[in-house]
């Protein structure tokens, strides 16, 4: 069990600062995902926590004590890389026992812990297998077991599911969730996959252009993005620009009540998710439009609707609409997210 605190952490490659001012806390037993596009420096953040990379600035604190200057082998944070990196000259049990041997744990105790962790990662019976004899998913589980068996204070996972195919990913996701809730190991996970972050994390930190844009629960980030960049990251949002006039948000397609927003006169951006726009039905301020394009996506249909100067993307369960058809859209005021200016 451990508490991780990143304090104004910055990472640089030579003269290039890729991450700056990263302040994030991971509470005991929590799984926090650091989400961001590939190449944003997320793996470097993980390496800085693990001690494999020296940060350009800031501090890393585990359980309140700064670990800057402490070599990786002395830190109680263990990192699991994107590739399993299982030692090919050892079998599964020996791989898992590697860290225990480094800590000079007694053989009997080590055997017991290895047995327990094999059960937890559903690898019982694989002890004697050689690394090349097991599948990719199994290798990933062995890599995870190898880290967990050490009962680290902090578990660092670098894109743990990205090297797996789609089916395996789902199984591993569930396994990770089960393991994390059972062991309650404090975990910092790094990924570029939004759905992975949304499904696994207690909280998400979104890293864009080297800065932490928003930290919050998956629900917060998805439904209440802090700014346009965050909303764009989760994709698919419709954006409207307008001004606040007399308590209403006036944009190209109409005026909507905007309670609580104070920015009179400023140009503002608002966002509404495609699935929050309603098609048809009675409403006070219907927005007329014409369907341009439809795309059947199974449980819902995606519509591209031209409403005057604006094209809105709508995700609706209705499957009866065709291109060229006129429709009436409703934008519920509570689903419109208006971003503060600046």
């Amino acid at each position, binding site marked *: 069990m451990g508490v991780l605190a990143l304090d104004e952490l910055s990472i640089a490659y030579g003269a290039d600062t890729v991450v700056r001012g990263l302040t994030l806390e991971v509470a005991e037993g929590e799984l926090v995902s650091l989400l961001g596009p590939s190449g944003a420096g997320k793996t470097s953040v993980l390496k800085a926590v693990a001690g*494999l990379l020296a940060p350009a600035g800031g501090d890393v604190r585990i359980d309140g004590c700064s670990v800057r200057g402490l070599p990786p082998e002395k830190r109680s944070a263990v990192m699991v890389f994107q590739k399993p990196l299982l030692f090919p*000259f050892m079998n599964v049990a020996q791989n898992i026992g590697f860290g225990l041997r*480094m800590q000079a744990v007694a053989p009997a105790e080590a055997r017991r812990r290895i047995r327990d962790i094999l059960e937890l990662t559903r690898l019982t019976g694989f002890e004697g297998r050689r690394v090349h004899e097991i599948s990719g998913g199994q290798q990933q589980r062995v890599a995870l077991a190898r880290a967990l068996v050490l009962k680290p204070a902090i578990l660092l996972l670098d894109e743990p599911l990205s090297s797996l195919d789609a089916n395996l990913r789902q199984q591993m996701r569930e396994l990770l969730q089960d393991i994390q809730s059972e062991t309650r190991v404090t975990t910092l996970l790094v990924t570029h996959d939004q759905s992975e972050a949304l499904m696994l994390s207690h909280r998400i930190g979104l890293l864009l252009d080297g800065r932490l844009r928003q930290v919050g629960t998956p629900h917060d980030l998805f439904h209440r993005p802090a700014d346009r960049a965050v909303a764009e990251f989760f994709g698919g949002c419709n954006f409207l620009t307008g001004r606040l006039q007399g308590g209403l948000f006036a944009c190209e397609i109409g005026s909507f009540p905007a309670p609580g927003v104070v920015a009179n006169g400023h140009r503002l951006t608002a966002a509404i998710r495609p699935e929050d726009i309603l098609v048809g039905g009675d409403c006070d301020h219907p927005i007329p439009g014409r369907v341009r394009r439809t795309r059947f996506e199974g449980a819902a249909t995606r519509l591209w609707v031209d409403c005057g100067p604006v094209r809105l993307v709508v995700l609706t369960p209705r499957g009866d609409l065709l291109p060229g058809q006129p429709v009436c859209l409703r934008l519920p005021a509570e689903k419109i997210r208006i971003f503060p200016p600046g």
Partner: protein
Amino acid sequence: MKRLLFGGMVAGAVLLPFLALVLWAFSQRWFYPRLLPEQWGLRAWQYVLGTAGTQMTEAFTHSVLVATVTAVLSVAGGVPAGRVLGLYHFRGKDLLSIVLMLPIIVPPLCVAMGLHLWLLQLELAATLAGVVLVHLSACLPYAVFVMWGVFSNYNLDFEDQARSLGASTLSVIWRVMLPLTFPGIVVAALFSFLLSWSQYLSTLLIGGGKILTLPILLFALMGSGDRPVAAAVSIVFVIPALAALAMSARYLGSRRMLGVW
């Protein structure tokens, strides 16, 4: 079936020249145009193992000692050098690789003659240590190049992972790096051993005739014209080399090729 046939052909092609050696070693009288010896006998072996026994033992011991020490030192130098060359980029790297190549490009006689003067001044001429040093000048470049190749394909992440799991630097070297590069180390050691084992000119020059190794003994006997004896000594010369090759066969080539043998 095809594998067996192919294997047989390869084995035959390699072993056929040795067949001639074996025939000579066990012959008593063999003159042209006969295809096989007129008379078989053990005279050659009686000479080699009996009369010349002391000389043979001395030559054999020196050869094994020098080749083994050369192989060990060659690998000891080759591994760190290969690691630096394979993993890092630095100014002058190209120049360094040319300098390392020089002992191979420059004729060995020139290298040996050049080193002779220096070794004389260091009072290492006509000593086993001097012979090892001159053999090293030929073997070390090979070891460095083999390990350079190995480290060019080396994934440093393995070491990072080991460190994150609690391994100290020494543990990383001993428990991760060396096992991972072991096949390459075996190849480098084998190259060095075989190269040192077969050295003639350099040993003669630096040894000054005082250090007796198997190749020197062999050449002397060849000069005497006594073919059965030369053949017998050749067989003694070849067997340790074949043994070294057999021991390291596991690490050479693909698994499929090994399946043929």
